[in-house]
């Protein structure tokens, strides 16, 4: 799938989570997403960036404005080299958390995206990819 712009940011602190939100917003506008769709993907990005920081011990995000024929969208990939997730089905469930949050991050991010995929290996790390297409 062709990409017109790619950006990478480190996620090492809660200030970086704010930067992820800002950069997601800039590129969501570039991808032509509506205001509601922008808000959804920025919120999803905020949840996933915080997961990368809190559970993955930090990592990075790759932001891509993507094209598929005449469709445009934004794809975000979050990667960490943290402990990995032992039970993905459990981690996806609303209300489940191993930390102190509400346990809405993964499930919520999935609901706010058009595409969602997650790969995780114990001791290796976790990679979450989401995409939102222009409606």
């Amino acid at each position, binding site marked *: 799938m062709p990409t017109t712009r790619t950006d990478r940011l480190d996620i090492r602190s*809660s*200030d970086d*989570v*704010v930067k992820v*939100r*800002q950069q997601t*917003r800039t590129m969501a506008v570039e991808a032509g997403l509506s*205001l*509601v769709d*922008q*808000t*959804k993907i*920025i*919120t999803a990005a*905020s*949840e996933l960036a*915080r997961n990368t920081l809190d559970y993955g011990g930090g990592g990075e995000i790759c932001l891509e404005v993507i094209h598929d024929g005449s469709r445009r969208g934004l794809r975000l990939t979050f990667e960490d080299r943290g402990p990995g997730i032992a039970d993905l089905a459990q981690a996806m469930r*609303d209300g489940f958390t191993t930390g102190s*949050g*509400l346990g*809405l*991050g993964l*499930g*919520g991010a999935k*609901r*706010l995206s058009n595409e969602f995929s997650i790969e995780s290996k114990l001791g290796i790390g976790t990679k979450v990819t989401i995409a939102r297409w222009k409606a």
Partner: protein
Amino acid sequence: MDRIPILKLGHALLVTIQVDMHDRLATALEEDLTSKIVAVGAKGVLIDISALEIVDSFMGRMLDNIAAVSRILDAETVVVGMRPAVAITLVELGLSLSGVKTALNVERGMALIQSRLEEFNADDED
């Protein structure tokens, strides 16, 4: 560290969130508000979030916590000015903010707090 200013208006506290909050700032606001409610004997807290482009689960939980703590301290929290896109997103995220009173704008939120203050004053005169 940065702090979000808290204004005192009679028996109410007014907070206008104008920056994209990082998590520590949100946590600091929760703590500052709690001590200020007690210090000034506030009966109402008005939080204006009209400048916020998103509310994620962390910020949502902060608003819920502030509302719960202020209720225990006999103050009512009203969150005002939520953008329509933020409301749609919050519900889809799975947060309904059921413990938080909301109003469309500062004026209506203030009216809610004012009516509570009047009740409180009327009780005082009895």
